[in-house]
C-alpha cells in the first residue's frame, strides 16, 4: 500500500438478487450504516432489507408543484387585471376559469423539474468520481453484477474485519478499494 493511497471501502459480490437481499439484511442487523447495494435494476423490498426509510421526494415535488401553480395563476391574474387589461368577448378581466389550464401546465412543469432534479440531488448525483470506480469488477453492476459496498466512513468499518464479515454472509470477490 502506497502512502498516499486512501481506503474508500470494501466491495463484495453476490450471485443473485435473493442473496444480495439476504446480505443486506445481515448488514443491517450487524449495525452497518454506510453501506449500499448495487444492482442492474431496482429490487423491491431492498429499502426494508437495508433498513432505510422511504424517499422524501414526494414532499419536494408537492411543494414545487404548488409553487408552479400559484406563480402561474398569479402571473395570469396580474397580466389580465394589472399589466395589460383588455376586454375579450365582454368577459371580466379576472376570469379565473380560463387561467386553470396554464396554471395546471405550470404546476406539472415545476413538479416534473422538481422530481428530476430532486431525485438526482437526493441520490447525490451527478458525481462523476466515486471510489467504487477504482474497482475493475464494479462495472459489472450495470450488466449482471450484484454488489454490497461498505463505505470507509462507517463507524464499524475496518478493512479486514469488514471483508471477513462480507465473506461470512456469502460475498465473493471481496475487494478493499484503494485509490489516490
Amino acid at each position, binding site marked *: 500500500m502506497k502512502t498516499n493511497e486512501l481506503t474508500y471501502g470494501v466491495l463484495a459480490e453476490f450471485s*443473485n*438478487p*435473493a*442473496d*444480495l437481499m*439476504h446480505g*443486506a439484511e445481515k448488514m443491517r442487523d450487524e449495525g452497518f450504516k454506510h453501506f*449500499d*447495494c*448495487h*444492482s*442492474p*435494476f*431496482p*429490487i*423491491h423490498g*431492498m*429499502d426494508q432489507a437495508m433498513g*432505510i426509510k*422511504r*424517499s422524501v*421526494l414526494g414532499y419536494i415535488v408537492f411543494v414545487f408543484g404548488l409553487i408552479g401553480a400559484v406563480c402561474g395563476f398569479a*402571473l*395570469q391574474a396580474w*397580466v*389580465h387585471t394589472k399589466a*395589460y387589461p383588455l376586454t*375579450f368577448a365582454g*368577459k371580466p378581466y379576472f376570469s379565473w376559469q*380560463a*387561467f386553470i*389550464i396554464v396554471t*395546471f*401546465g*405550470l404546476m*406539472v412543469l415545476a*413538479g*416534473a*423539474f422538481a*422530481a*428530476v432534479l*430532486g*431525485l*438526482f440531488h*437526493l*441520490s447525490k*448525483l*451527478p458525481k*462523476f*468520481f*466515486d471510489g*467504487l470506480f477504482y474497482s475493475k469488477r464494479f*462495472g*459489472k*453492476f*450495470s*450488466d*449482471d453484477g450484484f454488489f454490497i*459496498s461498505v463505505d470507509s466512513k462507517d463507524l464499524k468499518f475496518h478493512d479486514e474485519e469488514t471483508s471477513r464479515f462480507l465473506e461470512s454472509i*456469502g460475498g465473493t470477490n471481496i475487494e478493499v478499494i484503494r485509490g489516490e
Partner: protein
Amino acid sequence: MGNPVNMTNHKPKQSADSSAGAIIEETPLIAGNHTFSSITEKISGVIEGPTPKMWWVLFSFSVSLLLILVGSVGFLIWEGTGIWGLNSPVGWGWAIVNFVFWVGIGHAGTLISAVLHLFRQKWRTSINRFAEAMTIFAVICALLFPTIHVGRIWVLYWFFPIPNQMSMWPNFRSPLLWDVFAVSIYFTVSLLFWYVGLVPDIATLRDRAKTRGKKIIYGILSLGWRGANRHWRHYELGYLILAGLSTPLVLSVHSVVSTDFATSIIPGWHTTIFPPYFVAGAIFSGFAMVMTLAIIARKAFGMEEFITVNHLEKMAKIIMVTGLMVGYAYSIEFFIAWYSGNDYERFTFINRALGPYAWAYWIMVSCNVIIPQFFWSKKLRTNVTVLFILSIFVNIGMWFERFVIITSSLSRDYLPSSWDYYSPSIWDIATFVGSFGLFFTLFLLFLRFLPMISMAEVKGVLPQADPHHPMYQKSGEAHENK
C-alpha cells in the same frame, strides 16, 4: 360471431392474471431464456456493433426528406403562408392537420410510459423506450407546424410571457395560447421522463465503452450512476411521480388541442365531445404508429424475443378499444347534430358524409372504424404482417380524421356565398412529407446511438429478478445451513 367466443376464451386468462400466484405460469414477457447479461449484450450490441448498411440507406432517404422540409420551410418563411393552398374561408389547412396528427401520435408514447406504468403493466418495459422517443420526435414535428403557420416567425416570442418593449402580454384566455403552453410543457416533461429512464442504461454503455470519447460522453450523461439502492429508491419514486404527472398532462394536451376547435363557433367544431374524442383518437393513432415502428425495429435488429407477438397483440387490443371509442364519437356527432335541431350542425354533418369531402370522410371511416374490427380475430391480431398493414391504415385514417374535421367544417360554414373548396399546394405536400423526414432522421439516430429497449427495466421483469421467486428458495436455505 367471433366476438363472444374470443371474450369467453379470454376470461380464464384474465382471472389468472389477477391472482398473484399465477403470474409465474403466464407466458413469459421476454422469450428465449435470456439472462441479465445476454440482455445487455443483445441491446448494447446494436449500438456498439458496426452500422448496418440498411441503416445508411434509410438514413440517407430520411435526410433527403428532411432537406425537402428545410427547403419548403425556408421558402415559406421567405415568401409567407401564401404559398400554401389556404384560402378564405379555409384558413387552417394541412399545417394544422399535420400539427394535430403529430401531437396525437406522440400520445401513445406517454400512455405506454406513464399510464401503463401506473397500472403496473409490466409488458410496457419492452416498448416504452422507443415509444417515448417517438413521442419526443413526433412532438418536435408537431411544434414545427404552428410555429411556421404564424407566418412571421421572428415575432414568435409574443407567445410567451416575456417582458418586452411594447409592454404587451399574451392572452391567457385564448385556447391557442393554452396550446402553446400545453404542447411545449408536454415536450419538456416527456424529454425529462425519457432522460431519467435512460440514465441507468447509459451507465451500462459507459461501463462497456472501449474508447475514451465514448467513456467521457456516456460518463457525463450517466451522471455517475452506480446502481446503488440509495439511488434506486429515489429513482423509482421519482419515476412514479413523473408518471403521475404525465398522465393528467397527456390527457390535457389533446383536450387543449381540441379546444382550439371546440371554443369556436364553426359548426362541426363547436361540440363538447371534442376533448375525450380527441384523446381517444390520439391514443388510437399513436399506438398504430408504435406498432408500425415496433414491427420494423424488431425485424431489423432481431428483437423478436423482447418485442414478442404477445406485446403486439396487447397493442392491437388497445388499438381496437380506442378505435371503437373513435367510431362511437363519430356516430354521436351525427346523433347530436340531429338531436340539437340546429340546421347548420345538421347540414355540416350531412355535408361531411355526402358533400365535396365525402371521399375523405369515407377513407376516415374505413380506416378508423372498419379496419380495427379485424382485431376481434385472434388469428389476425397475432399475425405480424397483418398488424403492420393494418397499423398503417390506422395512421392514414387518423390523418384524414383531422383533415375532415378541419377542412370540411371550414369550407362550408354559415354563408353559402363564402364557401370554397380547399386543396393543398405542392408546398403543403412537401412540408408534410418533409416532416416524416425529420421524424425518421431523429428516430434512426436514436436507434443507432441509444438503447432502443430499456435494459434495466427488461432485466427487472425477468423471473430471476424477483428475490422472492421460488427458484431462490433452495439457495436461500442452503445459505442458512452454511
